[in-house]
């Protein structure tokens, strides 16, 4: 399915408006799903299901939102912060996410802030280009 970035942004926006009951103008590129748009854990699955349907793609579990596997591994998390190894893992697992700011203070409580609207758009764009 050939789509340009603007079309992807628009469709992702629609998905989030429907899944989270938010207004169009709240779904900005930088908005975080949990902090700004109020997403809870079940909403993440709802979003994945809706994205799969909208873009006709398959999203393997943990690919779009891989944080849980990271957090349960002591090699990656120490004293509530991601280790160097954890950060490397994060970079590898979430290439669609900009973690520049997070690296300075890799507090796991701030991991949620990495899930932004932009990250979803990047992920979908990568998926569509790969297929």
């Amino acid at each position, binding site marked *: 399915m050939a789509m340009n970035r603007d079309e992807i942004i628009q469709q992702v926006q629609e998905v989030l408006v429907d899944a989270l009951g938010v207004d169009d103008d709240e779904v900005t590129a930088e908005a975080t799903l949990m902090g700004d748009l109020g997403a809870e854990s*079940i909403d993440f*699955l*709802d979003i994945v*299901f809706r994205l799969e349907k909208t873009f006709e793609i398959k999203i393997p*579990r943990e690919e779009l939102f891989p944080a849980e596997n990271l957090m*349960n591994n002591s090699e990656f998390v120490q004293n509530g912060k991601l280790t160097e190894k954890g950060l490397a893992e994060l970079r590898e697992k979430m290439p669609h996410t900009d973690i520049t700011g997070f690296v300075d203070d890799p507090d796991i409580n701030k991991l949620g802030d990495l899930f932004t609207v932009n990250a979803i758009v990047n992920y979908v764009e990568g998926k569509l280009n790969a297929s």
Partner: protein
Amino acid sequence: MRWIWIDKFIEFQSGKHAVALKNVTLAEEHLHDHFPGFPVMPECLMIEAMAQTSGILVGEAKDFQEKVILAKIKKAVFFDYVKPGDTLKLYAEIESIVLEAASTSGKITCEDKLIAEIDLMFSHIDQNLGGKEFPEENFVFTADTSVFESLLRDVASGSAGTGTDVRLPGIAIYNHT
């Protein structure tokens, strides 16, 4: 016994879709208060009926091995009143089902008139919440599926028509098409 708010299934296709009936009667006490002189079925109880229809469908898809709980009402839109004497037909369909959760879409009709559209999400809670433990009891049905079997009586007997076998341990189920 569990509180069962639907009367029976008339179609049940494992992992795909189900159709249940709910008869509304003035013997339901809440209708006398909702509202005095104008008894109409509360919308929340229509959601309950759809949650049971869809929830049982989702539970059966994994042989009732998962603890299925209603996690999210994605959509609930109501188009008309439901009154005593009405027979509701609840159509539920599984849209997606994975290890942790399932998403369903549903419609309620009464004499072919659309009453409501209700889309839900269910969580398989043992697969979520970071390995938190929950009681062994199954949230949809226990290992004793007699209640489920009784809800399926008219599907199983074939009185609703013949169809293909649907998987369920112990009893044969048919979906009529």
